[in-house]
């Protein structure tokens, strides 16, 4: 199968859906000629024109609000938010408006929009350009949240997101834009709420989101050398969450670590771990462990930044302890 980058995969998904549905449009900063600072949208304005690939001023709450209004009245906007950190600027439009409109209107109005943005530290971009804020939006009922872990997921989830009748937030890992993966030429969609078992194993389940799937896979390789057989699962969407697949795995392996790049406290890892504890407690041989980013603003210095995110080595070390029945001094 051909291999393409995550960036190309997103670009293809957008182009295909924009060809298919004339009510779709892209709106955001430097999305047209510049194709975004990450060059993910290059070429789209040439095909679809500036009427459907719309450059905005640096006015995030404004263009987010405009997208909500357009979505409520029949369009399918794809909002481009340059950095995930800017979610804080658009919180009202996203969480008070987009997320609640369908419910508040008694099901009469819908807000079919996609917010595509990013996450991920270790790019030496400091505290306001490195955050992974998926937990913030996953907390709000009415929003769906997708976290692609490779080019394949990025394309299939994006297409599903655009056709969904709800506001969907997609977080791409900005360090993965150039990573290649096999992506079929023919059309496919990845349904929301379907986890992907990336690797089967007997001894412990490693659940990772976004780039943490790669971290989990590398940890599984390290563990293999110690004779520990790890299963790796990618939930692909955290809202909706495919509990059934996660529970089935944990009932089999009896141990689990949940890995996500958001801050550990009150985060995605806490939610998933808690569901596993509640629903698979009698199958567990060890407490389910959370591994998130350290509870600190992301520091600039490489000497500090690298300490803040989960690594394959740290995941493997914790997995060894859980498998040996040792308690872990968790944060």
């Amino acid at each position, binding site marked *: 199968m051909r291999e393409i980058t995550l960036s190309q995969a997103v670009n293809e998904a957008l182009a295909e859906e924009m060809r298919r549905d004339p009510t779709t449009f892209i709106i955001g900063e430097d999305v047209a000629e*510049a194709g975004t600072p990450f060059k993910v949208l290059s070429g789209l304005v040439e095909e679809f024109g500036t009427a459907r690939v719309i450059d905005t001023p*640096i006015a995030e709450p404004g263009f987010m609000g405009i997208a909500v209004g357009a979505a409520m009245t029949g369009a399918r906007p794809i909002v481009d938010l340059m950095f995930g950190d800017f979610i804080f600027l658009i919180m009202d439009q996203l969480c008070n408006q987009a997320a609640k409109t369908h419910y508040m209107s008694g099901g009469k109005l819908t807000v079919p929009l996609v917010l595509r943005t990013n996450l991920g530290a270790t790019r030496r971009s*400091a505290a*306001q350009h490195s955050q992974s804020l998926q937990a913030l939006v996953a907390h709000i009922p009415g929003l769906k949240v997708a976290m692609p872990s490779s080019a394949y997921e990025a394309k299939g989830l994006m297409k599903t997101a655009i056709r969904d009748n709800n506001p969907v937030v997609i977080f791409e890992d900005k360090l993965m834009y150039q990573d290649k993966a096999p992506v079929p030429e023919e059309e496919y969609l990845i349904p929301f709420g379907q986890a992907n078992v990336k690797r089967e194993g007997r001894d412990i389940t490693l659940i990772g989101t976004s780039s943490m799937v790669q971290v989990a896979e590398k940890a599984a390789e390290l563990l293999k050398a110690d004779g520990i057989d790890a299963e790796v699962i990618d939930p692909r969407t955290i809202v909706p969450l495919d509990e059934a697949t996660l529970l089935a795995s944990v009932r089999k392996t009896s141990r689990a670590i949940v890995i996500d790049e958001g801050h550990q406290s009150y985060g995605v890892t806490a939610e998933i771990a808690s569901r596993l504890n509640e629903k698979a407690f009698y199958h567990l041989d060890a407490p389910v462990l959370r591994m998130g980013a350290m509870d600190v603003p992301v520091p600039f*210095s*490489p000497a*500090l930044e690298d300490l803040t995110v989960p690594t394959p080595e740290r995941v493997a070390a914790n997995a060894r302890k859980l498998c040996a029945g040792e308690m872990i001094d968790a944060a």
Partner: protein
Amino acid sequence: MATTSKKGKTNSEAYLRMYRQMVRIRTFEDNANQLYLSAKMPGLTHMYSGEEAVAVGICEALTDSDRITSTHRGHGHCVAKGANFRAMFCELLGKEEGYCRGKGGSMHIADQSHGNLGANAIVGGSMGIATGSALRAKMMGHDDVTVCFFGDGATAQGLMYEVMNMAALWSLPVIYACENNGYSEYTKTEEIAAGSITARAEAFGIEAFKVDGQDVLAVNDLTQKLVARCRKGEGPFFMELDTYRYHGHHVGDINREYYRSKAEEKDWKENRDPISRFRAMLVSEGIAAEDEIEAINAEIARDAEDAVAYALEAHYPDGSEVDMHVYAD
């Protein structure tokens, strides 16, 4: 547009200091760019080269107790407000002796000892902070003034209109300094800003001025007047400074002809450069001789070279600092 005022020889010391500060900024940036190009600097950074007369003209009208808030393109503001090269380069390289102990980097550089409240990586993110600093001055009966630096692109942020309204209602000692360099990232200003920029402030009854941001004396004259009026309780004010950034949006923005022509860049550099213009004036007015100017330039180049060498050798912060400073004691 304000014209260059010539104050004669009594001002020669101040003029030479302004010249020196502009050259310090240009030299700092040239070195920072080299650090990036030679892969010695982590991350990206935004160069201030070309805009020196704005930061220097304004900051030379301020004292250390006056505050500024800065932007992602913040090295110029930091130098102009009095920062030293060593602690700045250490910060850019993520070293312990940096102004923020390596935690902030280029986009968050700050220097409280000279009243620089810090650069900001959120466009427009410091407008509230600057206005709040001015409210504090007024409440506490202090006479310091706060200058809020921001770009033309930041005028699109709603926060600006909320705080200008309050600053005007409450007569706060704040000066909004819009550095209009013609571009907001890869987009021309006219494509992202409808109508007039100064009229935005005037709508709130704030006196607004347009000034040639490549003319350090024009900028300095105007700022001195506005600062004095702010201290008398006549603030807030708004300045739009016409200027130009010589490099790309950030150091990695090399191929930029799709949004900005080489001819345009050449024109600004050759015909409106704030440093060469001012240097020519210093010489023609007899304030400094060519060899004195060259000596200043050489001394600054040495200072920068030393600081870079120092920063490259300096220590990274110890890993134990990673969870230090999340909360204040």
